[in-house]
Protein backbone atom coordinates (compact mmCIF):
# COMPACT_ATOMS: atom_id res chain seq x y z
CA UNK A 1 0.00 0.00 0.00
CA UNK A 2 1.33 3.40 -0.87
CA UNK A 3 -0.29 5.42 1.87
CA UNK A 4 -3.31 5.85 4.10
CA UNK A 5 -4.41 9.36 4.97
CA UNK A 6 -7.14 10.01 7.48
CA UNK A 7 -8.96 13.07 8.73
CA UNK A 8 -12.00 14.16 10.72
CA UNK A 9 -15.17 15.27 8.98
CA UNK A 10 -16.76 17.31 11.76
CA UNK A 11 -20.46 16.60 12.11
CA UNK A 12 -20.22 13.63 9.75
CA UNK A 13 -17.57 11.17 10.85
CA UNK A 14 -14.07 10.09 9.87
CA UNK A 15 -12.50 9.70 6.46
CA UNK A 16 -9.74 7.36 5.25
CA UNK A 17 -8.12 7.80 1.88
CA UNK A 18 -6.20 4.76 0.69
CA UNK A 19 -4.08 4.60 -2.41
CA UNK A 20 -3.32 1.06 -3.33
CA UNK A 21 -0.25 -0.29 -5.10
CA UNK A 22 -2.40 -0.99 -8.13
CA UNK A 23 -3.08 2.77 -8.33
CA UNK A 24 -6.68 2.59 -7.20
CA UNK A 25 -7.99 5.19 -4.83
CA UNK A 26 -10.32 3.94 -2.13
CA UNK A 27 -12.07 6.29 0.26
CA UNK A 28 -13.79 4.92 3.35
CA UNK A 29 -16.12 7.12 5.37
CA UNK A 30 -17.14 5.97 8.82
CA UNK A 31 -20.24 7.96 9.72
CA UNK A 32 -20.91 8.86 13.33
CA UNK A 33 -24.18 6.91 13.12
CA UNK A 34 -22.30 3.71 12.30
CA UNK A 35 -22.80 3.62 8.57
CA UNK A 36 -19.77 2.96 6.39
CA UNK A 37 -19.37 4.16 2.82
CA UNK A 38 -16.77 2.86 0.45
CA UNK A 39 -15.93 4.97 -2.60
CA UNK A 40 -13.77 3.93 -5.52
CA UNK A 41 -12.18 6.78 -7.46
CA UNK A 42 -10.69 6.76 -10.90
CA UNK A 43 -6.99 7.46 -10.79
CA UNK A 44 -7.17 9.66 -13.88
CA UNK A 45 -10.17 11.71 -12.82
CA UNK A 46 -10.29 12.07 -9.04
CA UNK A 47 -13.30 14.40 -9.01
CA UNK A 48 -16.05 11.80 -9.32
CA UNK A 49 -16.21 8.38 -7.77
CA UNK A 50 -16.78 5.44 -10.09
CA UNK A 51 -18.79 3.43 -7.60
CA UNK A 52 -19.75 3.38 -3.98
CA UNK A 53 -21.19 1.01 -1.43
CA UNK A 54 -23.10 1.84 1.75
CA UNK A 55 -22.87 -0.63 4.62
CA UNK A 56 -24.55 -0.79 7.99
CA UNK A 57 -22.40 -1.41 11.03
CA UNK A 58 -23.07 -5.16 11.18
CA UNK A 59 -22.57 -5.59 7.44
CA UNK A 60 -19.32 -3.68 7.62
CA UNK A 61 -17.99 -5.91 10.40
CA UNK A 62 -18.94 -9.05 8.52
CA UNK A 63 -17.27 -7.82 5.36
CA UNK A 64 -14.21 -6.73 7.30
CA UNK A 65 -13.93 -10.31 8.53
CA UNK A 66 -14.19 -11.68 5.02
CA UNK A 67 -11.71 -9.19 3.56
CA UNK A 68 -9.40 -9.76 6.52
CA UNK A 69 -9.32 -13.48 5.78
CA UNK A 70 -11.18 -14.68 8.86
CA UNK A 71 -13.68 -16.70 6.85
CA UNK A 72 -11.34 -18.07 4.23
CA UNK A 73 -7.60 -18.01 4.44
CA UNK A 74 -5.90 -17.25 1.12
CA UNK A 75 -3.66 -20.22 0.27
CA UNK A 76 -0.72 -18.09 -0.77
CA UNK A 77 -0.27 -16.52 2.64
CA UNK A 78 1.48 -18.26 5.49
CA UNK A 79 0.74 -15.72 8.16
CA UNK A 80 -2.28 -13.54 8.69
CA UNK A 81 -2.82 -11.20 11.51
CA UNK A 82 -6.13 -9.87 12.77
CA UNK A 83 -6.09 -7.27 15.47
CA UNK A 84 -9.12 -6.66 17.70
CA UNK A 85 -8.02 -3.88 19.99
CA UNK A 86 -5.23 -5.39 22.13
CA UNK A 87 -6.09 -8.94 21.12
CA UNK A 88 -4.33 -10.35 18.10
CA UNK A 89 -5.15 -13.51 16.23
CA UNK A 90 -2.33 -14.84 14.13
CA UNK A 91 -1.55 -17.79 11.89
CA UNK A 92 1.83 -19.35 12.67
CA UNK A 93 3.49 -22.15 10.77
CA UNK A 94 5.71 -24.54 12.69
CA UNK A 95 9.04 -24.93 10.99
CA UNK A 96 10.52 -28.45 10.79
CA UNK A 97 13.59 -27.56 12.88
CA UNK A 98 11.60 -25.97 15.72
CA UNK A 99 12.23 -27.39 19.20
CA UNK A 100 8.55 -28.00 19.81
CA UNK A 101 8.08 -30.50 16.97
CA UNK A 102 6.92 -33.86 18.33
CA UNK A 103 6.07 -32.52 21.75
CA UNK A 104 2.54 -32.10 23.13
CA UNK A 105 1.00 -28.77 23.99
CA UNK A 106 0.88 -29.85 27.64
CA UNK A 107 4.61 -30.67 27.64
CA UNK A 108 5.73 -27.24 26.58
CA UNK A 109 3.02 -25.67 28.75
CA UNK A 110 2.21 -22.95 26.19
CA UNK A 111 -0.48 -21.00 27.89
CA UNK A 112 1.18 -20.98 31.27
CA UNK A 113 4.55 -19.86 29.94
CA UNK A 114 3.53 -17.31 27.30
CA UNK A 115 -0.01 -16.21 28.12
CA UNK A 116 -1.11 -16.81 24.51
CA UNK A 117 -3.54 -19.55 23.52
CA UNK A 118 -3.54 -21.95 20.59
CA UNK A 119 -7.07 -21.81 19.19
CA UNK A 120 -6.66 -24.30 16.39
CA UNK A 121 -4.13 -26.54 14.64
CA UNK A 122 -4.23 -27.15 10.92
CA UNK A 123 -2.09 -30.09 9.81
CA UNK A 124 -0.33 -30.38 6.48
CA UNK A 125 -2.70 -33.18 5.47
CA UNK A 126 -5.80 -31.06 6.06
CA UNK A 127 -6.18 -32.48 9.56
CA UNK A 128 -7.94 -29.89 11.71
CA UNK A 129 -8.06 -29.70 15.49
CA UNK A 130 -10.17 -26.92 16.95
CA UNK A 131 -9.23 -25.96 20.50
CA UNK A 132 -6.46 -28.58 20.85
CA UNK A 133 -6.07 -30.14 24.31
CA UNK A 134 -2.81 -30.55 26.29
CA UNK A 135 -2.08 -33.95 24.72
CA UNK A 136 -2.24 -32.74 21.11
CA UNK A 137 1.11 -33.20 19.42
CA UNK A 138 2.74 -30.32 17.55
CA UNK A 139 3.87 -31.38 14.11
CA UNK A 140 6.20 -29.84 11.58
CA UNK A 141 4.52 -27.78 8.84
CA UNK A 142 1.24 -27.50 10.81
CA UNK A 143 -0.29 -24.06 11.01
CA UNK A 144 -1.33 -22.81 14.41
CA UNK A 145 -4.01 -20.19 14.98
CA UNK A 146 -2.94 -18.35 18.09
CA UNK A 147 -4.59 -15.58 20.09
CA UNK A 148 -3.15 -13.20 22.65
CA UNK A 149 -1.58 -9.83 23.08
CA UNK A 150 1.37 -8.94 20.87
CA UNK A 151 3.99 -9.61 23.52
CA UNK A 152 2.37 -12.91 24.52
CA UNK A 153 2.37 -14.10 20.93
CA UNK A 154 6.02 -13.18 20.57
CA UNK A 155 6.80 -15.20 23.71
CA UNK A 156 4.84 -18.12 22.31
CA UNK A 157 6.80 -18.13 19.06
CA UNK A 158 10.02 -17.98 21.02
CA UNK A 159 8.97 -20.98 23.12
CA UNK A 160 7.88 -23.00 20.10
CA UNK A 161 11.13 -22.27 18.28
CA UNK A 162 13.74 -22.46 21.04
CA UNK A 163 11.89 -24.02 23.95
CA UNK A 164 12.05 -21.02 26.24
Amino acid at each position, binding site marked *: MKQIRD*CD*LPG*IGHKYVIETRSEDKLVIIIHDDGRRELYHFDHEDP*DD*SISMITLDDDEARQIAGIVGGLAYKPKALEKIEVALDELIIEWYKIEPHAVCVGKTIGEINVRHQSGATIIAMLGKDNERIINPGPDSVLKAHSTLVVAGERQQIMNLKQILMNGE
Partner: protein
Amino acid sequence: MEHVVLELGLAVALIALAGLLSTKLRFSVIPFYILVGMAVGPHAPKFGNFDFRFIHSAELIELLGRLGVLFLLFYLGLEFSVGRLIKAGKSIAIGGTIYIVINFTLGLLFGFGAGLPLQEVLIIAGITSISSSAIVAKVLVDLKRTANAETEMILGIIMFEDIFLAVYISVLSGLVLSGASSIGGVLLSAAIALGYMLLFIVVGRKALPLLNKLFNIRSNELFLLAVFALLFIVAGFSETIHVAEAIGALLVGLVLAETEHMKRIEHLILPFRDFFGALFFFSFGLTIDPFSLGGAVWLSLGAVVITLIGNYVAGMLAGRSAGLSPKASSNIGLTIVSRGEFSIIIANLGKAGGLLPILQPFSALYVLILAILGPLLTKESKHVYNFLNRIFKLDRNYKKQLAAKTEVKRVEDPS
Protein backbone atom coordinates in the same frame (compact mmCIF):
# COMPACT_ATOMS: atom_id res chain seq x y z
CA MET B 1 -55.25 29.83 26.38
CA GLU B 2 -57.62 26.95 27.13
CA HIS B 3 -56.67 24.67 24.24
CA VAL B 4 -53.02 25.46 24.26
CA VAL B 5 -51.86 21.84 24.30
CA LEU B 6 -54.08 21.02 21.35
CA GLU B 7 -52.73 24.01 19.44
CA LEU B 8 -49.19 22.96 20.21
CA GLY B 9 -50.00 19.45 19.05
CA LEU B 10 -51.42 20.79 15.80
CA ALA B 11 -48.35 22.95 15.31
CA VAL B 12 -46.00 20.01 15.79
CA ALA B 13 -48.16 17.91 13.46
CA LEU B 14 -47.92 20.61 10.78
CA ILE B 15 -44.15 20.82 11.21
CA ALA B 16 -43.88 17.05 10.95
CA LEU B 17 -46.01 17.02 7.80
CA ALA B 18 -43.89 19.76 6.26
CA GLY B 19 -40.79 17.76 7.13
CA LEU B 20 -42.19 14.58 5.62
CA LEU B 21 -43.16 16.42 2.46
CA SER B 22 -39.70 17.95 2.11
CA THR B 23 -37.95 14.59 2.50
CA LYS B 24 -40.34 13.11 -0.08
CA LEU B 25 -39.35 15.91 -2.46
CA ARG B 26 -35.69 15.46 -1.40
CA PHE B 27 -35.40 19.07 -0.31
CA SER B 28 -33.87 20.61 2.76
CA VAL B 29 -36.41 20.72 5.62
CA ILE B 30 -35.58 24.24 6.82
CA PRO B 31 -37.49 26.26 4.16
CA PHE B 32 -40.51 24.01 4.66
CA TYR B 33 -40.60 24.65 8.41
CA ILE B 34 -40.46 28.40 7.79
CA LEU B 35 -43.11 28.28 5.07
CA VAL B 36 -45.57 26.32 7.17
CA GLY B 37 -44.97 28.78 10.02
CA MET B 38 -45.72 31.70 7.69
CA ALA B 39 -48.86 29.98 6.43
CA VAL B 40 -50.38 29.71 9.90
CA GLY B 41 -49.01 32.87 11.49
CA PRO B 42 -51.16 35.62 13.03
CA HIS B 43 -51.09 37.43 9.69
CA ALA B 44 -52.56 34.55 7.74
CA PRO B 45 -56.10 34.85 6.44
CA LYS B 46 -58.89 33.14 8.38
CA PHE B 47 -61.29 30.78 6.62
CA GLY B 48 -64.71 30.98 8.26
CA ASN B 49 -64.76 28.81 11.34
CA PHE B 50 -61.45 27.19 10.58
CA ASP B 51 -58.97 29.30 12.41
CA PHE B 52 -55.55 27.81 11.92
CA ARG B 53 -53.79 30.86 13.17
CA PHE B 54 -51.66 30.00 16.16
CA ILE B 55 -52.41 33.06 18.24
CA HIS B 56 -53.07 31.60 21.67
CA SER B 57 -50.01 29.38 21.59
CA ALA B 58 -47.82 31.90 19.76
CA GLU B 59 -46.06 32.96 22.95
CA LEU B 60 -45.43 29.40 23.99
CA ILE B 61 -44.13 28.44 20.55
CA GLU B 62 -41.90 31.49 20.53
CA LEU B 63 -40.41 30.42 23.84
CA LEU B 64 -39.85 26.89 22.57
CA GLY B 65 -38.22 28.33 19.45
CA ARG B 66 -35.95 30.41 21.64
CA LEU B 67 -34.92 27.23 23.43
CA GLY B 68 -34.27 25.81 19.96
CA VAL B 69 -31.64 28.51 19.35
CA LEU B 70 -30.02 27.66 22.67
CA PHE B 71 -29.83 23.97 21.80
CA LEU B 72 -28.52 24.68 18.29
CA LEU B 73 -25.71 26.85 19.60
CA PHE B 74 -25.04 24.60 22.60
CA TYR B 75 -24.55 21.66 20.24
CA LEU B 76 -22.33 23.77 18.01
CA GLY B 77 -20.16 24.55 21.03
CA LEU B 78 -20.00 20.88 22.02
CA GLU B 79 -18.94 19.80 18.54
CA PHE B 80 -16.42 22.52 18.13
CA SER B 81 -12.86 21.91 19.14
CA VAL B 82 -9.77 24.01 18.68
CA GLY B 83 -7.64 20.88 18.35
CA ARG B 84 -9.71 19.78 15.40
CA LEU B 85 -9.33 23.15 13.75
CA ILE B 86 -5.58 23.22 14.20
CA LYS B 87 -5.36 19.70 12.83
CA ALA B 88 -7.45 20.74 9.86
CA GLY B 89 -4.55 22.88 8.83
CA LYS B 90 -3.34 25.93 7.10
CA SER B 91 -5.22 25.51 3.84
CA ILE B 92 -8.51 25.75 5.71
CA ALA B 93 -7.46 28.89 7.57
CA ILE B 94 -6.62 30.43 4.20
CA GLY B 95 -9.82 29.19 2.55
CA GLY B 96 -11.95 30.30 5.48
CA THR B 97 -10.39 33.73 5.57
CA ILE B 98 -10.88 34.21 1.83
CA TYR B 99 -14.48 33.17 2.18
CA ILE B 100 -15.30 35.39 5.15
CA VAL B 101 -13.48 38.43 3.80
CA ILE B 102 -15.19 38.28 0.40
CA ASN B 103 -18.67 37.56 1.73
CA PHE B 104 -18.54 39.99 4.63
CA THR B 105 -17.21 42.82 2.51
CA LEU B 106 -19.84 42.21 -0.14
CA GLY B 107 -22.52 42.18 2.58
CA LEU B 108 -21.31 45.50 3.96
CA LEU B 109 -21.15 47.10 0.52
CA PHE B 110 -24.60 45.78 -0.32
CA GLY B 111 -26.10 47.11 2.93
CA PHE B 112 -24.59 50.57 2.49
CA GLY B 113 -25.56 50.53 -1.17
CA ALA B 114 -29.16 49.91 -0.15
CA GLY B 115 -28.96 53.04 1.98
CA LEU B 116 -29.49 51.40 5.37
CA PRO B 117 -28.16 52.69 8.72
CA LEU B 118 -24.98 51.18 10.21
CA GLN B 119 -26.52 48.72 12.67
CA GLU B 120 -28.86 47.30 10.04
CA VAL B 121 -25.96 47.02 7.59
CA LEU B 122 -23.97 45.03 10.15
CA ILE B 123 -26.90 42.67 10.67
CA ILE B 124 -27.32 42.20 6.91
CA ALA B 125 -23.62 41.54 6.42
CA GLY B 126 -23.86 38.89 9.14
CA ILE B 127 -26.91 37.30 7.55
CA THR B 128 -25.26 37.09 4.13
CA SER B 129 -21.86 35.93 5.39
CA ILE B 130 -22.62 32.80 7.33
CA SER B 131 -23.84 29.63 5.67
CA SER B 132 -25.90 26.92 7.27
CA SER B 133 -23.88 24.10 8.84
CA ALA B 134 -27.03 21.99 9.09
CA ILE B 135 -27.93 22.20 5.40
CA VAL B 136 -24.39 21.89 4.08
CA ALA B 137 -23.51 18.84 6.18
CA LYS B 138 -26.79 17.17 5.26
CA VAL B 139 -26.41 17.88 1.55
CA LEU B 140 -22.91 16.44 1.54
CA VAL B 141 -24.13 13.21 3.13
CA ASP B 142 -27.28 12.99 1.00
CA LEU B 143 -25.50 13.56 -2.29
CA LYS B 144 -22.72 11.14 -1.31
CA ARG B 145 -20.06 13.79 -1.58
CA THR B 146 -18.36 12.98 1.71
CA ALA B 147 -15.49 11.19 -0.01
CA ASN B 148 -14.71 14.01 -2.45
CA ALA B 149 -11.48 15.92 -2.20
CA GLU B 150 -13.16 19.27 -1.58
CA THR B 151 -15.30 18.04 1.33
CA GLU B 152 -12.62 18.66 3.95
CA MET B 153 -12.24 22.20 2.69
CA ILE B 154 -16.00 22.78 2.79
CA LEU B 155 -16.33 21.48 6.35
CA GLY B 156 -13.26 23.47 7.34
CA ILE B 157 -14.75 26.67 5.98
CA ILE B 158 -17.98 25.97 7.86
CA MET B 159 -16.02 25.47 11.07
CA PHE B 160 -14.16 28.67 10.41
CA GLU B 161 -17.45 30.46 9.89
CA ASP B 162 -18.70 29.10 13.20
CA ILE B 163 -15.89 30.84 15.04
CA PHE B 164 -16.53 34.00 13.10
CA LEU B 165 -20.20 33.69 14.01
CA ALA B 166 -19.41 33.37 17.71
CA VAL B 167 -17.16 36.41 17.75
CA TYR B 168 -19.43 38.39 15.49
CA ILE B 169 -22.60 37.73 17.49
CA SER B 170 -20.82 38.70 20.67
CA VAL B 171 -19.64 42.00 19.20
CA LEU B 172 -22.95 42.62 17.50
CA SER B 173 -25.06 41.80 20.54
CA GLY B 174 -22.98 44.20 22.61
CA LEU B 175 -23.61 46.79 19.96
CA VAL B 176 -27.28 46.23 19.17
CA LEU B 177 -28.72 45.07 22.48
CA SER B 178 -27.06 47.57 24.80
CA GLY B 179 -28.56 50.51 22.93
CA ALA B 180 -25.29 52.43 23.17
CA SER B 181 -25.22 55.30 20.73
CA SER B 182 -21.79 56.91 21.01
CA ILE B 183 -18.77 55.21 19.49
CA GLY B 184 -17.20 54.93 22.93
CA GLY B 185 -20.32 53.27 24.35
CA VAL B 186 -20.44 50.84 21.43
CA LEU B 187 -16.79 49.88 21.82
CA LEU B 188 -17.25 49.45 25.55
CA SER B 189 -20.27 47.15 25.20
CA ALA B 190 -18.53 45.10 22.50
CA ALA B 191 -15.49 44.85 24.76
CA ILE B 192 -17.68 43.72 27.67
CA ALA B 193 -19.22 41.00 25.49
CA LEU B 194 -15.82 39.76 24.28
CA GLY B 195 -14.32 40.00 27.76
CA TYR B 196 -17.21 37.99 29.17
CA MET B 197 -16.62 35.26 26.58
CA LEU B 198 -12.92 35.06 27.27
CA LEU B 199 -13.42 35.10 31.02
CA PHE B 200 -16.03 32.36 30.78
CA ILE B 201 -13.75 30.11 28.73
CA VAL B 202 -10.74 30.69 30.99
CA VAL B 203 -12.76 30.06 34.16
CA GLY B 204 -14.39 27.06 32.52
CA ARG B 205 -10.98 25.57 31.75
CA LYS B 206 -9.79 26.10 35.31
CA ALA B 207 -12.98 24.57 36.71
CA LEU B 208 -12.66 21.47 34.52
CA PRO B 209 -11.86 19.01 37.34
CA LEU B 210 -14.76 20.41 39.33
CA LEU B 211 -17.14 20.09 36.38
CA ASN B 212 -15.97 16.53 35.76
CA LYS B 213 -16.83 15.69 39.36
CA LEU B 214 -20.07 17.67 39.39
CA PHE B 215 -21.47 15.95 36.31
CA ASN B 216 -20.43 12.52 37.49
CA ILE B 217 -24.10 11.55 37.89
CA ARG B 218 -25.25 8.05 37.15
CA SER B 219 -28.97 8.76 36.69
CA ASN B 220 -29.75 10.03 33.19
CA GLU B 221 -32.59 12.12 34.55
CA LEU B 222 -30.50 14.02 37.05
CA PHE B 223 -27.65 14.34 34.58
CA LEU B 224 -29.93 15.93 32.00
CA LEU B 225 -31.40 18.27 34.59
CA ALA B 226 -27.97 19.41 35.67
CA VAL B 227 -26.89 20.09 32.07
CA PHE B 228 -30.10 21.97 31.26
CA ALA B 229 -29.90 24.01 34.44
CA LEU B 230 -26.38 25.12 33.62
CA LEU B 231 -27.34 25.86 30.01
CA PHE B 232 -30.42 27.95 30.81
CA ILE B 233 -28.90 29.80 33.74
CA VAL B 234 -25.80 30.83 31.81
CA ALA B 235 -27.81 31.75 28.70
CA GLY B 236 -30.30 33.75 30.75
CA PHE B 237 -27.60 35.45 32.75
CA SER B 238 -25.74 36.42 29.57
CA GLU B 239 -28.79 38.25 28.38
CA THR B 240 -28.94 40.33 31.57
CA ILE B 241 -25.55 41.80 30.67
CA HIS B 242 -26.55 42.36 27.01
CA VAL B 243 -24.76 39.34 25.60
CA ALA B 244 -27.03 37.30 23.33
CA GLU B 245 -28.51 34.17 24.93
CA ALA B 246 -27.18 32.21 21.99
CA ILE B 247 -23.63 33.17 22.92
CA GLY B 248 -24.22 32.02 26.49
CA ALA B 249 -25.38 28.65 25.17
CA LEU B 250 -22.38 28.43 22.85
CA LEU B 251 -20.04 29.13 25.76
CA VAL B 252 -21.59 26.39 27.91
CA GLY B 253 -21.14 24.01 24.98
CA LEU B 254 -17.50 25.01 24.50
CA VAL B 255 -16.72 24.46 28.17
CA LEU B 256 -18.62 21.19 28.54
CA ALA B 257 -16.95 19.85 25.37
CA GLU B 258 -13.70 19.68 27.34
CA THR B 259 -15.16 17.52 30.10
CA GLU B 260 -15.08 13.73 30.07
CA HIS B 261 -18.88 13.67 29.82
CA MET B 262 -18.91 15.29 26.38
CA LYS B 263 -20.06 12.19 24.45
CA ARG B 264 -22.89 11.53 26.89
CA ILE B 265 -24.14 15.12 26.75
CA GLU B 266 -23.95 15.13 22.96
CA HIS B 267 -25.94 11.93 22.81
CA LEU B 268 -28.63 13.12 25.25
CA ILE B 269 -28.98 16.61 23.79
CA LEU B 270 -29.38 15.62 20.13
CA PRO B 271 -33.14 14.84 20.23
CA PHE B 272 -33.78 18.12 22.03
CA ARG B 273 -31.82 20.04 19.42
CA ASP B 274 -33.80 18.38 16.62
CA PHE B 275 -37.20 18.96 18.20
CA PHE B 276 -36.71 22.51 19.46
CA GLY B 277 -34.68 23.42 16.39
CA ALA B 278 -37.66 22.54 14.18
CA LEU B 279 -39.90 24.67 16.39
CA PHE B 280 -37.40 27.50 16.04
CA PHE B 281 -37.78 27.62 12.25
CA PHE B 282 -41.54 27.30 12.60
CA SER B 283 -41.74 30.14 15.13
CA PHE B 284 -39.57 32.28 12.88
CA GLY B 285 -42.09 31.66 10.12
CA LEU B 286 -44.88 32.66 12.49
CA THR B 287 -43.37 36.11 12.94
CA ILE B 288 -43.31 36.77 9.20
CA ASP B 289 -46.27 38.49 7.62
CA PRO B 290 -46.44 36.96 4.11
CA PHE B 291 -47.80 40.26 2.79
CA SER B 292 -44.80 42.17 4.10
CA LEU B 293 -42.46 40.04 1.98
CA GLY B 294 -43.29 42.14 -1.07
CA GLY B 295 -41.41 45.10 0.32
CA ALA B 296 -38.26 43.06 0.74
CA VAL B 297 -38.26 41.23 -2.58
CA TRP B 298 -35.72 43.35 -4.43
CA LEU B 299 -33.45 43.66 -1.43
CA SER B 300 -33.50 39.89 -0.91
CA LEU B 301 -32.98 39.07 -4.58
CA GLY B 302 -30.09 41.50 -4.75
CA ALA B 303 -28.49 39.90 -1.72
CA VAL B 304 -29.03 36.43 -3.19
CA VAL B 305 -27.29 37.37 -6.45
CA ILE B 306 -24.38 38.93 -4.60
CA THR B 307 -24.09 35.90 -2.31
CA LEU B 308 -24.07 33.52 -5.28
CA ILE B 309 -21.30 35.43 -7.02
CA GLY B 310 -19.31 36.01 -3.85
CA ASN B 311 -19.52 32.36 -2.80
CA TYR B 312 -18.52 31.06 -6.20
CA VAL B 313 -15.50 33.34 -6.45
CA ALA B 314 -14.50 32.58 -2.86
CA GLY B 315 -14.87 28.85 -3.51
CA MET B 316 -12.68 29.00 -6.63
CA LEU B 317 -9.99 30.96 -4.81
CA ALA B 318 -10.10 28.78 -1.69
CA GLY B 319 -9.96 25.64 -3.81
CA ARG B 320 -7.02 26.91 -5.80
CA SER B 321 -5.15 27.84 -2.61
CA ALA B 322 -5.48 24.20 -1.52
CA GLY B 323 -4.44 22.84 -4.93
CA LEU B 324 -7.84 21.39 -5.80
CA SER B 325 -9.06 21.01 -9.36
CA PRO B 326 -11.34 23.78 -10.75
CA LYS B 327 -14.25 21.36 -10.72
CA ALA B 328 -13.73 20.55 -7.03
CA SER B 329 -13.29 24.25 -6.27
CA SER B 330 -16.52 24.99 -8.08
CA ASN B 331 -18.24 22.48 -5.79
CA ILE B 332 -17.03 24.41 -2.74
CA GLY B 333 -18.72 27.63 -3.76
CA LEU B 334 -21.93 25.92 -4.83
CA THR B 335 -22.21 23.90 -1.62
CA ILE B 336 -21.58 26.56 1.00
CA VAL B 337 -24.04 28.94 -0.59
CA SER B 338 -26.89 27.48 1.51
CA ARG B 339 -28.13 29.81 4.23
CA GLY B 340 -30.25 28.81 7.21
CA GLU B 341 -30.25 28.76 10.99
CA PHE B 342 -27.38 31.18 11.63
CA SER B 343 -28.72 33.84 9.30
CA ILE B 344 -32.03 33.72 11.15
CA ILE B 345 -30.32 33.86 14.54
CA ILE B 346 -28.55 37.04 13.48
CA ALA B 347 -31.79 38.46 12.06
CA ASN B 348 -33.49 37.75 15.39
CA LEU B 349 -30.75 39.72 17.10
CA GLY B 350 -31.81 42.69 14.98
CA LYS B 351 -35.40 42.16 16.08
CA ALA B 352 -34.40 41.93 19.74
CA GLY B 353 -32.47 45.19 19.35
CA GLY B 354 -35.50 46.93 17.87
CA LEU B 355 -33.90 47.64 14.49
CA LEU B 356 -35.80 48.32 11.24
CA PRO B 357 -38.62 45.76 10.77
CA ILE B 358 -37.61 45.14 7.15
CA LEU B 359 -34.82 42.87 8.42
CA GLN B 360 -37.33 40.11 9.25
CA PRO B 361 -39.00 39.69 5.83
CA PHE B 362 -35.62 40.30 4.17
CA SER B 363 -33.92 37.49 6.06
CA ALA B 364 -36.94 35.21 5.63
CA LEU B 365 -36.96 35.57 1.85
CA TYR B 366 -33.19 35.44 1.62
CA VAL B 367 -32.96 32.25 3.68
CA LEU B 368 -35.92 30.66 1.89
CA ILE B 369 -34.38 31.26 -1.52
CA LEU B 370 -30.88 30.11 -0.61
CA ALA B 371 -32.00 27.17 1.51
CA ILE B 372 -33.79 25.85 -1.58
CA LEU B 373 -31.34 27.04 -4.22
CA GLY B 374 -28.19 25.95 -2.36
CA PRO B 375 -28.92 22.20 -2.27
CA LEU B 376 -30.16 22.38 -5.89
CA LEU B 377 -26.98 24.06 -7.07
CA THR B 378 -24.91 21.51 -5.14
CA LYS B 379 -26.78 18.68 -6.79
CA GLU B 380 -26.37 20.11 -10.28
CA SER B 381 -22.83 21.33 -9.65
CA LYS B 382 -21.53 19.41 -12.65
CA HIS B 383 -23.80 21.25 -15.08
CA VAL B 384 -23.20 24.62 -13.45
CA TYR B 385 -19.48 24.04 -13.72
CA ASN B 386 -19.62 22.93 -17.35
CA PHE B 387 -21.75 25.94 -18.19
CA LEU B 388 -19.50 28.46 -16.44
CA ASN B 389 -16.41 26.72 -17.76
CA ARG B 390 -17.56 27.28 -21.31
CA ILE B 391 -17.82 31.01 -20.66
CA PHE B 392 -14.92 31.71 -18.30
CA LYS B 393 -12.55 28.81 -19.20
CA LEU B 394 -12.04 28.02 -15.52
CA ASP B 395 -9.80 25.05 -16.20
CA ARG B 396 -7.38 26.89 -18.49
CA ASN B 397 -4.56 27.26 -16.00
CA TYR B 398 -5.19 23.93 -14.33
CA LYS B 399 -4.80 22.02 -17.61
CA LYS B 400 -1.53 23.77 -18.27
CA GLN B 401 -0.34 22.87 -14.78
CA LEU B 402 -1.35 19.24 -15.22
CA ALA B 403 0.40 19.09 -18.58
CA ALA B 404 3.54 20.55 -17.04
CA LYS B 405 3.39 18.03 -14.21
CA THR B 406 3.07 15.00 -16.47
CA GLU B 407 5.89 16.44 -18.58
CA VAL B 408 8.12 16.49 -15.51
CA LYS B 409 7.11 12.93 -14.68
CA ARG B 410 7.98 11.76 -18.14
CA VAL B 411 11.40 13.34 -17.93
CA GLU B 412 12.05 11.72 -14.58
CA ASP B 413 10.73 8.36 -15.57
CA PRO B 414 11.53 7.54 -19.20
CA SER B 415 9.53 4.31 -19.10
